[in-house]
């Protein structure tokens, strides 16, 4: 029977091409607009490390006191910590694993003297970064804690940089020149670009992975300044030592806490640490610390911008208008056929048969609208790329699940649009004769 209704639907849709096209266009355009924004929204709102996001915690400590947080966050906490706290937290080993990290960079001088030096971003961190964030390796392995302690000139590079410098060959053991110093490659990552770049949201949320990773201790040793944000509440002593001893925050700190008990314990420990700082006179205010797991951290840092939310809102309202539109047109179409329906009823069709026939017709419109919507989504995403900044690029890929959502959304939208007209059609009484008009 489905096949029969399907062929009837096609026939009926062919009968009034303009009306059909209008309905398909309405659904398609509505789906296109809402899927375009939804795709970006989903990418922004994505869990970058799904199976572990509940075990990784960003650490915040109030090292300025309540009076000094004049900017930014509403809860009077900075999203980074200072060097003193970072080192204390690293040495305490209070979590299963923990890392401090910051973004810095180099001028990389290629071995080939013909080529000009170029700039590379670098992330200074500890060995556990790779296991905590499950960084995949193509060649070699992360440096060990021995290298951390030794402030060793070793680096891990990304797949992309390895391609660029070594044509993708195994470069483990080779060296590269960073600001006139040789660094030995100890590992090469497989492609790894979590989006959003949850472990560092201080500058841009959708930046790619820094091409070079080096031991934090080495970076400090070489006086490498942060290339991210540095915020201070008061002036510090001059020079590098002055910066390290200051209350300037420029370091991200993450702890891996595998169980609820571990989280509780770490929370207590952290609070206790801040309290000790108060007792020692370093802080003159009550202990104030916070832990956020990855998902909560993304929300806390407003990774999904207001503009994106507004766009999603506007485009879904737009879809609503399109659904209303299709509903009106479908009502017109079905009611225009009430004579036919009356005859069918007279010939023995029960209400269910009429319902099925009309719903399948609505479904066909939905499917066609959905396909059009997918095409328009792809075009819309291309459009977004050309008018929005580059960082959006990573967020504009329509994956198969996106296509499925688009089609499901289209059919659901059409079904909703089709429900009332269909119900009205089924109310048509079996007709004895075609009434005039």
């Amino acid at each position, binding site marked *: 029977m489905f096949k029969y209704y399907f062929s009837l639907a096609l026939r009926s849709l062919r009968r009034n091409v303009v009306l059909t096209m209008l309905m398909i266009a309405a659904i398609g355009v509505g789906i296109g607009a809402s899927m375009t924004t939804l795709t970006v929204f989903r990418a922004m709102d994505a869990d970058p490390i799904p199976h572990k996001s509940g075990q990784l915690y960003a650490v915040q400590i109030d090292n300025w006191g309540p009076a000094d947080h004049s900017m930014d966050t509403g809860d009077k906490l900075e999203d980074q910590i200072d060097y003193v706290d970072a080192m204390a937290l690293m040495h305490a080993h209070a979590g299963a694993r923990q890392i401090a990290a910051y973004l810095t960079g180099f001028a990389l001088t290629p071995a080939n003297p013909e080529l000009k030096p170029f700039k590379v971003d670098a992330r200074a961190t500890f060995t556990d970064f790779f296991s905590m964030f499950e960084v995949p390796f193509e060649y070699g392995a992360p440096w060990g804690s021995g290298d951390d302690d030794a402030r060793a000139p070793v680096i891990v590079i990304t797949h992309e940089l390895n391609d660029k410098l070594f044509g993708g060959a195994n470069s483990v053991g080779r060296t590269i020149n960073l600001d006139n110093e040789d660094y030995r490659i100890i590992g090469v990552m497989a492609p790894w670009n979590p989006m959003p770049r949850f472990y560092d949201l201080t500058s841009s949320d959708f930046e790619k992975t820094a091409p070079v990773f080096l031991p934090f201790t080495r970076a400090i040793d070489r006086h490498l300044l942060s290339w991210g944000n540095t915020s201070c509440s008061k002036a510090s002593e001059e020079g590098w030592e002055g910066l390290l001893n200051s209350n300037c925050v420029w370091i991200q700190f993450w702890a891996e806490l595998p169980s609820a008990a571990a989280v509780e314990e770490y929370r207590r420990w952290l609070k206790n640490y801040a309290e000790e700082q108060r007792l020692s006179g370093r802080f003159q205010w009550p202990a104030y610390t916070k832990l956020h797991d990855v998902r909560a951290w993304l929300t806390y840092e407003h990774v999904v911008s207001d503009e994106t939310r507004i766009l999603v809102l506007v485009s879904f309202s737009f879809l609503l208008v399109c659904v209303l*539109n299709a509903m009106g047109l479908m009502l017109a179409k079905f009611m225009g056929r009430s004579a036919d329906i009356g005859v069918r009823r007279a010939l023995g069709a029960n209400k269910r048969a009429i319902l099925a026939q009309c719903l399948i017709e609505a479904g066909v419109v939905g499917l066609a609208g959905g396909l059009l919507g997918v095409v328009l989504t792809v075009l819309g995403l291309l459009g977004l790329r050309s008018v929005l900044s580059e960082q959006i690029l990573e967020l504009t890929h329509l994956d198969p699940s996106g296509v499925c959502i688009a089609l499901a959304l289209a059919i659901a939208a059409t079904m909703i649009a089709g429900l009332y007209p269909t119900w009205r059609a089924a109310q048509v009484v079996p007709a004895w004769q075609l009434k005039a008009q």
Partner: protein
Amino acid sequence: MEVLPILSAMRRNKVGAILVAVQMAATLAILSNALFIIQQHLALSSRPSGIDEANLFAISNQWVGTPPDESALLQTDLAALRALPGVIDAYATNSYPLTNSGWGDGADLKPDQTKSSTHMARYFGDEHTLNTLGVKLLAGRNFTAAEVVDRMYNDQAAPTALIISRAMADSMFPHGDALGKSIYTSGNKAQTSPIVGIVERLQSPWVSGSSWAAGWVENTAIEPYHYLAKSFCYLVRTQPGQLENVLLLSQQKLFEIHRARVLDKVQTLTEARQEVYRDDRGLALILAVVCAVLLAITAFGIVGLTSYWVAQRRRQIGIRRALGATRGAVVRYFQTENLMIAATGAVVGIVLAITLNLWMVSSFQLERLHNSYAVGGAVIVLLLGQLAVLWPALRAASIPPALATRSV
């Protein structure tokens, strides 16, 4: 005119009329809010930076390692840039407008303030800065060469002189007597810095609507420093029409002087403006496209439904024509009908638009909708309805009176 018969006709086609009205209301709500957001973002992105954008470009310079005599090298670079043909002037700095990246700080009138008087962006520069940027000195004087000293990243001494923007001057000294006053900046509570000059306008680097500097985007201070750091920028102002040429030439020149450097980002200030406001303009464009398509969809929906109503009432219209209704009367009938539906939709739509806006204001960083946008949206929707109904109404008017005599 014939409002009552239209009303009774609509009563028999309730759902269709309601659908059109709701659709128009939703269209109006979306339209007015979207237009409002568009206007805001366009206004944001067309604010002046205060500098001669058309003839300026910037080069980000990054040394490879630390060159032996950084200070001398910087001076050599600057001298060479200023000597290039087509160059008006050049200087070196930590940051410049339209980049969303730079240094910010509080500024205090007294050393023991717990809360800063205002905030400002800090630009480093020298006696060539005002001429390079093309900003207008309103009062006071330029830096002297002697005032300009070298500065490292974490130096803490207070600047020996400041040239500030008028907005900054006004926010600290509302009586217009800022010139010659001394203020505390950069967290240094021991030393003050005298204000030696005031420029008409110089925007901070953070221009996004939701940035941390949203409340003090016009507040800036220029400090007499040559910034000795791994990375900094050269800004170059050229004679009109010389920009592209000088842009290439200056890079060659810099590499001639010292090869071990990275000129990472070379951009004109026009490009900088485009880039920094890309998302604002992009959002405005996307919303504009959505609005256009929305209007089209609504219009075609009305055309479709009205055509159907016309088809349904062909005989009735024929009878009216036979009884003496003119073509104009038939067209007016459908126009009045649409006007009544659209007016209902517009009233609901205005309420909806304001509700939507209030909700967005409470959820996002968004301003209250000006009433003119809701009213403007209503006018657009009413006109749209009249326009959309015209074609089916004309078709209805062409139904021959003879139809009445034909029984089907």
